[in-house]
């Protein structure tokens, strides 16, 4: 079966600037792909090509096996899209706007009303349903845009910064919403917020200057950070010999270090490539032996460090031109 969403070597040039440089992706149902990258990396441009708003300079986009270029209407029917900034018609009410969107998607009568009611409920828009959109707060406007995107229960959801402008509670709600829709949809979420990746994404794609520089799970992404996959645990002195022996036997542990603590116990520092497996196996050993472990702590690695490490070339370049304006 064709992937839900596929980008085949997409390229977009604006005059002399290459905004997107051969991006290839396949997204399946059940995946929430976190699309990361610095401002101007090409995230939004890529999404605009996937949704058929922009024509690629090279390459092709497919939605459920349908070419966006050859049969745009059929491709667009399968997509729910929240464009950057959640644009909506300011003079309409959320009810009018959502009804309009439903009609363009071929929903009429009771089916249309049911779809609107479902989206309104999912985004808690009941309170503002008959106010004009231009009078709504930024958070509500974003939610109106999201409601429009999920209205027709699409197979593919493409959301450009869905939580921008929301307060922490609303962010939480939107993440829950995305998580709840995950199992039968392919979802792409672009974001600047790295914690969001941890919260909702099953996969991370980081792009920098139009190219993919990382594609993997959030755990692998975090694993790129220095000190990632490192587990620290404090054990009593009498357990040390046994512990060393058992930890050395674990395939998941690639390096081990131990230091006595001031109160006479020993702190183990265990490193592994797969930190999830690492913590599972190590806690299994500790539980099995019945040691009174203390301060079991996983050094999670800092996402923003990975982000910076993978996309910092440009920053370095700018640093070396201290004070000079670098014009695009």
């Amino acid at each position, binding site marked *: 079966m064709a992937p839900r969403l596929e980008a085949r070597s997409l390229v977009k040039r*604006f005059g002399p600037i290459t905004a997107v440089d051969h991006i290839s992706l396949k997204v399946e149902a059940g995946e929430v792909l976190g699309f990361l990258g610095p401002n101007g990396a090409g995230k939004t441009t890529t999404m*605009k090509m996937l*949704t*058929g*708003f*922009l*024509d690629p300079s090279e390459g092709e986009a497919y939605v459920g096996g349908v070419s966006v270029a050859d049969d*745009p*209407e*059929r491709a*667009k*029917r399968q*997509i729910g*899209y929240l*464009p*950057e*900034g959640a*644009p*909506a*018609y*300011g*003079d*309409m009410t959320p009810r*009018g706007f959502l009804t*309009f*969107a439903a*009609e*363009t*998607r*071929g929903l009429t009568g009771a089916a249309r009303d049911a779809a609107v009611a479902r989206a309104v409920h999912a985004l808690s828009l009941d309170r503002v349903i008959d106010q*004009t959109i231009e009078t709504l707060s930024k958070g509500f406007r974003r939610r109106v845009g999201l409601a*429009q995107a999920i209205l027709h229960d699409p197979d593919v959801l493409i959301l450009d910064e869905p939580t921008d402008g929301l307060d922490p509670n609303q962010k939480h709600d939107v993440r829950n919403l995305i998580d709840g829709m995950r199992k039968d949809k392919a979802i792409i979420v672009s974001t600047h917020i790295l914690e969001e990746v941890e919260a909702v994404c099953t996969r991370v794609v980081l792009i920098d200057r139009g190219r993919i520089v990382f594609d993997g799970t959030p755990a692998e992404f975090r694993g790129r950070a220095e000190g990632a996959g490192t587990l620290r645990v404090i054990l009593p002195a009498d357990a040390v010999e046994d512990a060393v022996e058992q930890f050395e036997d674990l395939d998941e542990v690639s390096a081990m270090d131990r230091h006595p603590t001031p109160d006479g116990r020993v702190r183990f520092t265990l490193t592994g490539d797969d930190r999830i497996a690492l913590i599972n196996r190590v806690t299994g050993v500790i539980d099995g032996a019945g040691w009174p472990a203390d301060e079991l702590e996983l050094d999670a690695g800092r996402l923003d460090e990975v982000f910076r490490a993978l996309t910092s070339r440009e920053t370095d370049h700018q640093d070396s031109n201290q004070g000079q304006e670098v014009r695009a």
Partner: protein
Amino acid sequence: MTGWLSIFKREFRAYFATPLAYVFIVIFLVLSGVFTFFVGGFYERGQADLLPFFAYLPWLYLFLIPAVAMRLWAEERKSGTLELLMTLPIGISGAVVGKFLAAWAFTAVALGLTFPLVITVNFLGSPDNGAIVSGYLGALLMAGAYLGIGAAVSATTKNQVVAFVLSVTVCFLFTVSGLEIVQAFFPDAVGKEVAKFSFLTRFNDISRGVLDLRDVIYFATLIGFWLFLNRLFLDNAREAG
């Protein structure tokens, strides 16, 4: 071409959701009244017809129709809703036609509201109602042509003022090409050809009761041509973001 009806309905309602519709209709009715009765000398002429009304209509439309059309695409581009619209499963042509028809229907409503003139003239005398019907149909076609120009021009910019000024200019050229003062610039043969493109020349004939099929074809072709340009301009607009 699918989805044009949803676009049409949304657009048509949008006129009445803002003061635009009411301001436009009131100004249109007041000005057409002023032109008909004061400038056109409706009573003084002592003839039961609507020629004073129809004579000034092209000049009224020259400014008022671009004012209706200027927002059509410029506003969508400015607010970012163009991206939303173009990613809904409606063909671009459907959106172009839907928007155009909504604007046209709106100007038809405004034109229809001049019906008291028809009643008045029938009350005062016995006019040639065939000529009046022909005049109204011609007015509607002419409004469509002005709108087609305005809609296409509106797709070239994010700025509504720029759209307004440009479309008044283009509409002006299409209006005045039939005037003698313009004709004087051209050799006779060329001038006659240029005059064929004038709304004024066409509409003057129509409002005297001669609605020729060729006039209908002329306006329909012109509308089609500008809607086609509108589509092309939109493709550029997408690239420009």
